[in-house]
């Protein structure tokens, strides 16, 4: 409002008063907004609860990438190394170039392969032969550790065992990666599952996989 419209003193003060009242009302409203009441908190938490349902549906429907889920076309045999001596380990990428993996020959000659993506927060897992009885797969991020035979968690925050990479050794000593498993899935079960998937049940028919409680 301009002075021209309200030249009189009395009018001017009236305008001032209205403006002041308006301002104080606005202030009241703003300060009321900045308080989170229990009722607001209730509404927020109910909304969070709904968000968790949506997240859970997404997880079950399969939005997260999962080791062991590679499309059959991706899971081609890959030659990892010509020869792997006892106590040696070699890292490679399988089934895609973004999936870091490791092949280890334990001291007793057993050949094992794992994804090296930690199941906790996806840090890189390292092979540490000096840890544990036969060495351990060790995650430096939060000191998680996995035993080398089945990839089970022996220490730290990882919630699941390391997913295995299925390895095979040819008569010439070369080591091949031939498949991937889910977290904590047995090699036999993973191999059977992938064979079934590749074959689409045409040649083999659907073989009942061992421990097929897994669905």
């Amino acid at each position, binding site marked *: 409002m301009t002075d021209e419209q309200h030249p009189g003193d009395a009018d001017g003060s009236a305008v001032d008063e209205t403006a002041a009242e308006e301002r104080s009302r606005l202030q009241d409203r703003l300060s009321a907004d900045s308080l989170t009441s229990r009722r607001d908190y209730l509404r927020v938490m*109910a909304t969070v*609860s709904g968000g968790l*349902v949506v997240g859970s549906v997404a997880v*079950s429907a399969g939005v997260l990438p999962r080791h062991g889920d590679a499309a059959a076309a991706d899971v081609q045999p890959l030659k990892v190394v010509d020869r792997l001596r006892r106590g040696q380990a070699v890292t490679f990428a399988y089934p895609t170039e973004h999936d870091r993996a490791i092949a280890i020959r334990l001291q007793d000659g057993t050949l094992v392969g794992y994804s090296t993506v930690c199941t906790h927060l996806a840090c890189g897992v390292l092979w540490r032969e000096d840890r544990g009885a036969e060495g351990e797969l060790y995650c430096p991020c939060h000191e998680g550790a996995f035993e080398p035979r089945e990839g089970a968690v022996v220490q730290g925050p990882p919630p699941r065992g390391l997913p295995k990479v299925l390895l095979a050794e040819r008569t010439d000593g070369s080591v091949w990666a031939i498949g991937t498993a889910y977290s904590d899935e047995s090699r036999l079960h993973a191999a059977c599952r992938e064979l079934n998937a590749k074959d689409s049940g045409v040649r083999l028919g659907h073989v009942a996989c061992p421990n097929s409680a897994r669905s």
Partner: protein
Amino acid sequence: MAHPADRPEEFRSDSALGAAAPWSAPGSVQPRLNRPVADRYPQIRPTSGYGDSRIRRSGPGPGAGTDHDPERSAMLTGRLVVVLSVVVGQLWALGVGVDAWMQGHTSTAWWCTGFEGLSFLIALAAWRFGPTDH
């Protein structure tokens, strides 16, 4: 002589009839304000109503400013506790579901999703169907 309304001692009731706690009893602590409207404003006839130009606002009346339903606040806290517990349970179920799915147990993951849905319904009920607020 002062107006009767300014002599509150005459209107103080000694009988401790009201069993309600003093802080929850409706009305004013000043008994003279608790008289019926006709006593407080003898000039206003029962027939005046809101048409009476002297009545500018209906006023708060007896009971204003006190808690009408003292349990309402505790109930709100209770509902909040229920919803918070539900959300904690849902976070746990989400963890279980993700683990199960990563291990290939897809059906377990769907069971967890069902649990999440039921939990959400409980949270929704606790949020929406509280006692009516003023």
